[in-house]
């Protein structure tokens, strides 16, 4: 077992042991904290497909996180009120269906956004993805049907067959299982022929094209897959908070998702997990000490970017093997 595998296993066990211990000690609040970390980690695993593997710095992934959240909010509101959605479709409160809708919706939205954004590169790509996310953000703010600026409440957490999702621990385990699923997908993608092509597109698109693979399709696929995973995380996040609002679509959210990856270690399997755990920990510890915790988060982040370039995993498990 390499050092990185050991660190990854340790992180995965730590993330599941923490809420189990909290349950044993009768402290459900800490389970919620771990759930938040798991969901943010899943969202960042999604972004890591585009950003870490593909080198596509999307500054607009909050769009997919928020769309996933709204998919959950809208479907369960319609189910709760027993109103048909449109064209004879019904709302649903069943999580697997909601995840499917969130993933498909995000994929469908990511397709045109990716197709236009990928015509550009570098700093243009950063800004155009940001602008698309803002477009969806302003739409959500000014569209009154689903709460507009005030957001949309989910009155009863959505259901999963055979599991009581209203209790914190079962809901955590669902999120944790999906996180492991997301990590497995990332690992499979990275090891596949597709992953090799994506890596090539990041390192040298001209050379990749010269061996007969067009980078555009590879990148677009990565962008769409990345959006779908982040969308599912958004649906979970809405269910965790029982609330969706345009703030899930905001540019700060996009920034936070990038922060998670960089804190943990860019392009590494467990980077987002380490980053999300560290982020939630910083938020909780600093937030308990001072109201001004974001000031210190800014300082920590600045130090990481300037001086600790490999992130937390870089410290724990040494340098990444490649790239």
């Amino acid at each position, binding site marked *: 077992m390499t050092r990185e595998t050991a660190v990854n296993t340790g992180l995965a066990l730590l993330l599941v042991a923490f809420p189990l211990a909290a349950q044993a000690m009768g402290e459900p609040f800490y389970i919620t904290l771990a759930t938040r970390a798991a969901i943010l980690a899943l969202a960042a695993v999604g972004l890591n497909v585009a950003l870490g593997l593909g080198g596509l710095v999307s500054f607009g992934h909050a769009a997919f996180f928020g769309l996933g959240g709204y998919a959950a909010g809208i479907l369960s509101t319609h189910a709760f009120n027993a109103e048909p959605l449109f064209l004879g479709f019904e709302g649903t409160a069943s999580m697997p269906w909601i995840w499917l809708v969130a993933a498909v919706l995000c994929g469908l939205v990511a397709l045109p956004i990716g197709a236009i954004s990928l015509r550009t590169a570098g700093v243009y790509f950063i800004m155009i993805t940001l602008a698309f996310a803002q477009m969806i953000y302003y739409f959500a703010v000014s569209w009154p049907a689903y709460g507009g600026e005030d957001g949309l409440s989910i009155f009863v957490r959505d259901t999963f067959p055979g599991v009581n999702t209203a209790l914190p621990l079962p809901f955590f385990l669902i999120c944790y299982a999906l996180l492991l699923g997301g990590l497995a997908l990332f690992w499979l993608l990275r090891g596949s022929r597709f992953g090799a092509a994506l890596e090539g597109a990041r390192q040298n698109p001209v050379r990749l094209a010269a061996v007969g693979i067009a980078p555009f399709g590879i990148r677009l696929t990565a962008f769409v897959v990345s959006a779908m995973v982040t969308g599912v995380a958004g649906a979970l996040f809405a269910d965790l908070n029982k609330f969706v609002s345009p703030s899930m679509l905001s540019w700060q959210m996009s920034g936070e998702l990038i922060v998670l990856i960089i804190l943990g270690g860019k392009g590494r399997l467990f980077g987002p997990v380490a980053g999300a755990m560290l982020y939630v920990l910083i938020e909780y510890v600093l937030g308990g000490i001072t109201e001004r915790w974001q000031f210190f988060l*800014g300082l920590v982040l600045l130090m990481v970017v300037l001086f600790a370039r490999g992130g937390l995993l870089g410290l724990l498990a040494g340098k990444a093997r490649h790239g």
Partner: protein
Amino acid sequence: MSVELLIEQLLNGLQLGMMLFLMAAGLTLIFGVMGLINLAHGSLYMVGAFACAAVATATGSFWIGLVASIAAAAAAGALMEVVVIRRLYERDHLDQVLATFALILIFSEGTRWLFGSFPLYLNIPPLLQGAVPLPGGGRYQLYRLALIGVGGGVALGLYLLISRTRLGMRIRAGESDREMIAALGVDIRTLYTVVFALGAALAGLAGAMVGALQSVQVGMGEPALILAFVVIVIGGIGSIKGALFGAILVGVVDTMGRFLLPKVLALALPPAQAGAIGAAIASMLIYIVMALILALRPRGLFSAQA
């Protein structure tokens, strides 16, 4: 719909565009010369607004406040460049985004620390209060006209600075080949600090002037920053001419969209629905325009780097 109202809205669009130009000019200059993407530019805008509001309240003079805003933003910019930004020129865009995102958190929370969470208010100076008659019978706020004038003046000043002065020559040389001008004996580190402070001063000036129209509060910089990004992406990053054109386009399209779209849709739809849909589309309109322009010209309209 009267002609006066239409002219008034057009002028509002032009005024928004001119303020966006002040933000975008600094942003595009910094990107063009140093290759740096600076998210914290919105924080400098906020610093300018807060400095102006605080000094104007303390001294009773808007004009001293305005000078203070330029000085404070330029100083904050120079400090930011020397302490943090300087280390980022050789890094990739991702690191630049992250570090300047961290700077936003620090500046926003720091400002809240100093000034509290309540917005400050800044009054329009007595000299510029009141309205002037427009051709066609309407009246228009003098202060907004003054903002258009300042924007135009800055555009002209920047053009002269860049095309006619020694500093401008160095900036242009720095854009095309930084090693070469360093080899010719130009102190490139100081040049970068000066360019950064110049961009910061323009952002601070914009913040102070807009501060008299809106409330001065933490978080005011980011919406302006994102609009300025749209402007420089449309105009072509690194091009001042593109920034001016993009800013006016964004200002006018945004203002006219909000004004006209609900009215146009009301011809086909019931009024309540037309209002809601019109407002929703209008708020997305500039992003749609940007997507269209980038889909046709991926490097913007006046790209400086071919």
